């Protein structure tokens, strides 16, 4: 079976859902003839027409607010931010408007916002953001962050079908590096709120998501040769998140390491750590460690960014600390 890239999986998910459901449409900047900054919407204008592939002026609050307005009238907008970083300009529409409609008035807001996120590509402070924690802290929004092509495909399809607003974090670093075999039809759907065990292991639980997953898998494979078996859990969804799978794994391994590419304070890694400290304390044989970026904007130059970002070496280091307990 042929393999599909992560970005192509996203494009295919949109095509399939648009074909399946007339109410799905795309909205964003440069997404029409140009096909989007990362070509996620290439060919879609030609295929679906300008009513369903709506090019907008540069106006992120508008894109978010229009999506809210269309969603409450029964359409299913999929909005693209050109880079995740620019979601700040539409933040308020997303957090305050999309996030509260159902709570206040039981009005469903079935919209998806796609955020090309993350570092590793020399993007610097304004083209590398991992903004997931902001949205996990905003009740009413769902947040997903796939790490594989199959999950990008299946989670985007589920997100589009979901009746709530979903923030879909996709990784620029994985767009063309990550490849996989996609399922077809409903077999492709990946449920929200369900983690995936990427590697099984007995000695330590390593919880991560998105860009962290390939780093974690590489570390696990490397350490297996030294007799250390790491269980890698790919969360896939952050809001809701699969705390039960994480707790069950920690019960088995007694050790927890959490990896996030985002900056440290108030990160989703902190949330996982706090949750296990509260509810899994009895299972723990060692302190919980987090591997994250430092609390700084993402630097641009390659040495600086390499220092800034988590990587396999940092993970191996942290594992060795935990294995001393």
């Amino acid at each position, binding site marked *: 079976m042929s393999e599909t890239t992560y970005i192509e999986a996203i494009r295919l998910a949109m095509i399939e859902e648009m074909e399946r459901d007339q109410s799905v*449409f795309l909205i964003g900047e440069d997404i029409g003839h140009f096909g989007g900054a990362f070509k996620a919407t290439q060919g879609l204008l030609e295929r679906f027409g300008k*009513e*369903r592939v*709506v090019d*907008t*002026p540069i*106006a992120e*609050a*508008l894109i*978010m*607010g*229009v*999506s*809210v*307005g*269309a*969603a*409450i*009238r*029964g*359409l299913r*907008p999929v909005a693209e931010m050109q880079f995740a970083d620019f979601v700040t300009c539409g933040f*308020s*529409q997303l957090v*305050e*408007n999309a996030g*509260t*409609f*159902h*709570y*206040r*008035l*039981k*009005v*469903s807001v079935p919209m998806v916002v796609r955020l090309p996120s993350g570092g590793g590509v020399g993007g610097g402070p304004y083209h590398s953001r991992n903004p997931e924690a902001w949205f996990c802290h905003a*009740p*009413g929004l*769902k947040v997903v962050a796939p790490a594989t092509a199959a999950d990008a495909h299946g989670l985007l399809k589920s997100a589009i079908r*979901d*009746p*709530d607003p979903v923030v879909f974090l996709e990784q620029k670093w994985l767009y063309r590096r990550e490849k996989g075999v996609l399922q077809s039809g409903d077999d492709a759907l990946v449920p929200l*709120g369900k983690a995936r065990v990427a590697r099984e292991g007995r000695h330590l639980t390593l919880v991560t998501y998105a860009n962290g997953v390939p780093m974690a898998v590489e570390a696990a494979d490397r350490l297996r040769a030294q007799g250390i078996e790491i269980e890698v859990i790919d969360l896939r969804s952050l809001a*809701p*998140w699969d*705390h*039960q799978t994480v707790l069950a794994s920690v019960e088995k391994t007694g050790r927890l390491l959490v990896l996030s590419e985002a900056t440290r304070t108030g990160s989703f890694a902190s949330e996982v750590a706090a*949750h296990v400290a*509260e*509810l899994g304390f009895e299972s723990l044989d060692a302190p919980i460690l987090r591997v994250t970026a430092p609390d700084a904007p993402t630097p641009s130059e390659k040495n600086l960014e390499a220092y800034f970002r988590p990587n396999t070496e940092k993970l191996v280091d942290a594992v060795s600390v935990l294995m001393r307990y």
Partner: protein
Amino acid sequence: MPRRMSADYPPHPAPPVLPPPPLGASLPAERWPSPDELLAIHRSMLRARLVEERIVELYRQNRITGGCYSGIGNEATAVGIAFPMHNEDVLVPTHRDMGAHLVRGHSALEVFRQYFKRASSQTGGKDSGLHLGREGSNIVGMISHLAHMLPVAVGVALAERQKGNPAFVVTTVGDGASSLGDFHESLNFAAVQKLPVLFVIENNQYAYSTPITLQYACERLSDRAKGYGMFGEDVDGTDVVLVVDAARRARERGMRGEGPTLLNAVTMRMRGHSEHDDFKYVPKALFEAWSAYDPLLRLEKRLVEQHLATTADLERWREALGIELDRAVDEAWAEPEPAGAEAARDVYRRWDESWTPPTGAERWGSSS
């Protein structure tokens, strides 16, 4: 307590005391509302006024808590923009639009339930004030963030067009809120897309304590329409006949595919920003000048002059409505409060209980 102004900090320049706005008589005869329409408009304006007077009274009695924004003085605009709307049209109102809510189908009982934050209210006590608009209805429930409903209104118009529905969208914004970026982004895109939307600026001279002289430097806010490539005009927002006519023409324009309209409705906020506010910052002369333009009294004077009502009729209608509203207040007040545990429910449409992380509070026994 009156505010003391030091010599270094003179009060902000107040808006100019307006000359009498032009009267509706200048409207060509064929554009006047029919006698029946005028009477229906009057019923809505009177209802809006009396509902809001009740709300002010209930606030004073501490039976309504939190922000309490009234549209007293804005009835001609709120009723006038809603009155020409058709069933399939969508209203995206804001906080001074009691009249529009009542015209478009919300009942006084629903309003009182909402202000009392009863379990039976549309928001079940989770939100308050005029944040009303059920799923499936053609009224969209506002959030407090100013100008934030404009992109939503534009999205509604886009969605209805995509669905093939010939619906018109009417939305409102304050003079103050017209300074936010969401206002610009919305008008610009609506014009680019030629969407059938009426953007109404309820230009009531103040945004909380800030006079329009500190809000914008253009002569009239309707001048901005040209910059966006849409039709724009000013209207005397205290003359309901003129507002209805402007809204009708905007609808005709929108349905002909000529795109959105910006309507700058000039009015005066006749109460404090919220009921806690004594609005001492409004110069007395300005307030008094505007008092002569009470939109309800202006319409009533006209009804009498045109022999559509006698002063005795007006008195009778007011009394009957008062009795009805007192009953609605009593009924809403008697309804139950929501249970505390509702606070964490309905955050999402689709939620699996297994997703809810225990908060710990359950173990400490503090849950209600």
